């Protein structure tokens, strides 16, 4: 199964600034998913990132706030823009495991906005 390296593992940011989260996969994958997990809550899908096309955003999430880059089949970034304390969450990337109907997750980025 794929191994994902997600960076940074945690960060404390000032409101109004932006943070870019990176996910590097050790194999080529067509789809990559970005999730948000608010404190004490479940995971909510932000968007699906496909290489060579615009990301597809879920209801309630917009590209201006969460721009996504997918330059190749092994790498993606999610930017949290113009942050406010409400953006304090864990952000996780995920990719499908080929042929097994499973998913591998990155280790998550714990973001705190002050």
């Amino acid at each position: 199964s794929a191994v994902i390296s997600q960076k940074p593992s945690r960060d404390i940011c000032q409101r109004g600034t932006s943070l870019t989260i990176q996910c590097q996969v050790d194999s080529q994958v067509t789809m990559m998913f970005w999730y948000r997990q608010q404190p004490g809550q479940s995971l909510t899908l932000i968007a699906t990132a496909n290489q060579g096309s615009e990301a597809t955003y879920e209801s309630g999430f917009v590209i201006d706030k969460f721009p996504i880059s997918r330059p190749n089949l092994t790498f993606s970034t999610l930017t949290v823009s113009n942050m406010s304390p409400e953006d304090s969450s864990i952000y996780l990337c995920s990719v499908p495991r080929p042929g097994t109907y499973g998913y591998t997750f990155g280790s998550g980025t714990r973001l705190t906005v002050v």
Partner: protein
Amino acid sequence: AQTVTQSQPEMSVQEAETVTLSCTYDTSENNYYLFWYKQPPSRQMILVIRQEAYKQQNATENRFSVNFQKAAKSFSLKISDSQLGDTAMYFCAFGAMEYGNKLVFGAGTILRVKS
């Protein structure tokens, strides 16, 4: 829209005993797959077990097994011989190719294993 419901916010079990976590889901899809993920305090999402909807046989992975009732849209997780390391948040999740292979998660159940 697909929904996943976990009705037990918290559960506790004594070490070495058995515990069952409940999950129900709603979908109009016929071909889909279900998962249980474990999230310990490290926040790493760990796949515990998966079940393809077309398979009638319940999935089993060592101490973990599921009771998959397709007609009732129920997918419970049984943990046998509970260990302290099983303490974590457990999420039930649904996915389907027709749904873009995205996962829909339940609210989660915090499981505490007591010594």
